[in-house]
């Protein structure tokens, strides 16, 4: 806490105990998977298989033709049955490829592994581009893009913080594959061409910290360090993590201050791709929240329907009228009105909460949103500008910088949807920018 700024973060009860001690459940869909053909807005997709084709785990299914092209690989083996429109966690219905599972679940090598220790930087970037790996932190940004220009980068940060309440998928995944994780970190270190790698882990997970430290020691690695970070939200946000670990600030992207941040799970995917030639097929997903009878982590193929997973793990609680189904954690995840959505590549949790809400009261101007905002914004002032419908003020007050972490709503004692007010300001500003 400094004099002119508040704490810019807040401890939130993690509720991780609901899922972090139980074993991961390995589930398979009974009949079909639906692989979303969606990679950001206005992205076109080129299909590489025809209806009726037999595909295997690792068969390349499609290429997306957006600004940053990403290939898609099959997560199961079976017969490709064509595309269908289904609800998607982008809130709009999207095309999904339907694959009917066969019994064998045969895998093929998606691509040739690479001798990453001796590969050149260009080859390695090209390799990662070909693997179709996207950031596992939630935003789903293609991983290779971050490593295209690394001249000014001096630090790589591996984000294993997982600050969202309820979610334990990353924790489980790294606990299960510490060796692959450390290999992935080494590959990313080589990609970033840096001497210093910091792995951020919450200090409330000493088992994970020790496990990774032992693994680093076993391989005699230098320049890779595990750092315990405080259990506050949004410590897993890039900006807060960079502030905590290297005490730097930046305007838009971490690259501006010489830092690349990647998620722990991304490192594991990179290691698997480089060493075994495997594309991302399965995913650790936390199914948690008070709305579920038996919260647990599951390991499922990409494209499995959420409704089917909920059914297989024991269903939701029954004595209520309605629930909230959140794709992601309760803070940044979005509520879905349909459980027909499927597990996508960057999704790491489904949180189901009771549908209760405290009524909002008048703002008492306590300033908690201002002192807790990790971006240093003043949400109460932005909300005022929204009330006045003054776009110039919204811009001046920095509404566009908002990362929508939701902390302002969380801390508000008057139970006002502060984040939504800031989102309104962002929408107003974006509409204005589009008109020009």
């Amino acid at each position, binding site marked *: 806490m400094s*004099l*002119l*700024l508040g704490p810019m973060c*807040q401890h*939130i009860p993690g509720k991780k105990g609901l899922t972090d001690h139980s074993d991961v459940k390995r589930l398979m869909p009974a009949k079909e998977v639906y692989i979303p053909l969606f990679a950001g807005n206005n992205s076109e997709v080129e299909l590489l298989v025809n209806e009726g084709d037999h595909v295997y785990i690792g068969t390349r299914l499609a290429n997306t033709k957006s600004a940053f092209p990403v290939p898609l690989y099959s997560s199961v083996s079976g017969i490709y049955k064509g595309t269908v429109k289904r609800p998607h966690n982008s809130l709009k219905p999207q095309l999904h490829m339907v694959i009917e599972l066969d019994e064998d679940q045969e895998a093929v090598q998606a691509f040739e592994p690479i001798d990453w220790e001796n590969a050149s930087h260009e080859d390695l970037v090209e390799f990662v581009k070909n693997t179709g790996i996207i950031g596992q932190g939630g935003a789903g940004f293609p991983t290779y893009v971050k490593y295209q220009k690394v001249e000014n980068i001096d630090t790589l940060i591996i984000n294993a913080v997982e600050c969202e309440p309820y979610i334990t998928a990353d924790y489980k995944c790294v606990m299960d594959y510490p060796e692959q994780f450390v290999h992935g970190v080494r590959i990313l270190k080589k990609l970033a061409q840096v001497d210093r790698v910091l792995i951020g882990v919450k200090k409330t997970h000493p088992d994970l910290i020790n496990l990774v430290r032992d693994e680093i020691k076993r391989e005699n690695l230098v320049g890779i360090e595990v750092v315990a970070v405080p259990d506050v939200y949004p410590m897993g946000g890039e900006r807060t993590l960079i502030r905590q670990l290297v005490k730097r*600030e930046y305007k838009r992207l971490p690259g501006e201050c010489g830092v690349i941040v990647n998620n722990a799970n991304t490192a594991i995917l990179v290691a698997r791709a480089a060493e075994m030639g495997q594309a991302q097929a399965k995913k650790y997903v936390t199914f948690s929240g008070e709305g579920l009878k038996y919260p647990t982590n599951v390991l499922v193929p990409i494209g499995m329907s959420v409704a089917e997973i909920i059914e297989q793990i024991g269903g*939701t609680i029954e004595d209520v*009228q*309605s*629930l*909230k*189904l*959140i794709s992601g954690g*309760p*803070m*940044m*995840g*979005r*509520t*879905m*009105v*349909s*459980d027909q959505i499927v597990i996508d590549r960057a999704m790491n949790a489904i*949180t189901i*909460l009771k*549908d209760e*809400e*405290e009524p909002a*009261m*008048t*703002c*008492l*101007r*306590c*300033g*908690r949103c*201002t*002192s807790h*905002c990790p*971006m*240093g*914004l*003043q949400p109460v*002032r932005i909300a005022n500008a929204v009330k006045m419908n003054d776009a110039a*003020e919204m811009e*001046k*007050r*920095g509404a566009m910088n908002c990362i*929508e972490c*939701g*902390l302002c*709503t*969380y*801390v*508000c*004692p*008057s*139970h006002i949807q502060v*984040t939504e007010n800031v*989102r309104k300001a962002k929408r107003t500003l974006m509409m204005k920018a589009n008109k020009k």
Partner: protein
Amino acid sequence: MKYTFHVSPNLQSKNSTQQIMRDLTIGLLVVFVASVIYYSTAFGINVGLQAVILLACSLVTTFVCEAVFAKLKKKSVKDVITHSFGWVTSIILVMMCPMNITPYAIIIATFFAIAVGRLMFGGFGYNIFNPAAVGRAVIFASFSGATTRLVTSATPTGILAGSFKWLPMTEVALESYLDRVGGFGSLFLGTTPGAIGETFSILILLVGVFLVLRGVIDWRIPTFYLGTIFVITCALALLTGVQPYHGIPGWIWYPVLHLITGGVIFGGVFMLTDPVTAPTSPAGRIFFAICAAAITVLIRLKGNLPEGCLYSILIMNCFTPMIESALDGPQLEIKKKAWFMIACSAVLALCVSFYASSTMKGVKGPVKKTAQVVEVVPCVEEVL
């Protein structure tokens, strides 16, 4: 299962405005009870009861005003009363008034505080001025004669302002002042006459620490308010050459005297921190508190009023919107501007010391009670 839509985030802390106000009410009542106990033991049980009667009158007026407001706005009376927290205003207002005030004066003051100070602006959360301060200003301006004769001894603030012009320069002068008010000890403990709640310096500070820990008030406001008063008066003591007292240098005892006499601790902890009327950003709050401190000391030393806390709060309240818009924008980007504003306010505060030191003549000799005329002013003198 039906899944409902809701904007994210879907998690909210257990904090609530009700909880904040409950903590604040508890804090205020602790001080109020201490005051009732002190007045009952020092002046008799009927004086202690008078405080309770005043509070009851004020609370009833508040609830009546809010009920009428609710009816006019066609809202549920219960909702309006429980969501506007008028009782906090009532308690603060009563605690700012001296014991001698008549119940009808407090009723009218409460009416102004609630109806004019708050409801006319739109109710809780919309008022510009601290409503309790508005009510107190009404009493001060219009009801200075409306007093009973329950407590007739002069208050430390009155004596210090009247006989010593807020500047006892020598050991003898301070000695003669302390003789009449019971020494530093009673000033700290609050066992002196004054406004009902303002004298209990140490107790109020303890309550303040509790409120800061509970997240009810921002530590920056009382710290910078009282800190600035300390610095200004410290500089004044150095500039005018206030003499040591029993070995304690003048630049220490004189600022302490300023802090524990009068209502600055009460004002700094309970009134300036009112979130509705203070700026929302930490930088704005620091600026706000420093300016309020400068105005307080200026009124004390150079104004006609014995105390400056009340008006410093009201004056700074009207600057709140301006401070807010001056400090709009991402806080990390406007940091420089914020430091510049705070530096300006600090210079302004020091100017008060220089101005006062160059124009004031301190009291050098002892002042005997019999020589006093000033103290016979109406007993509503110790404006917070």
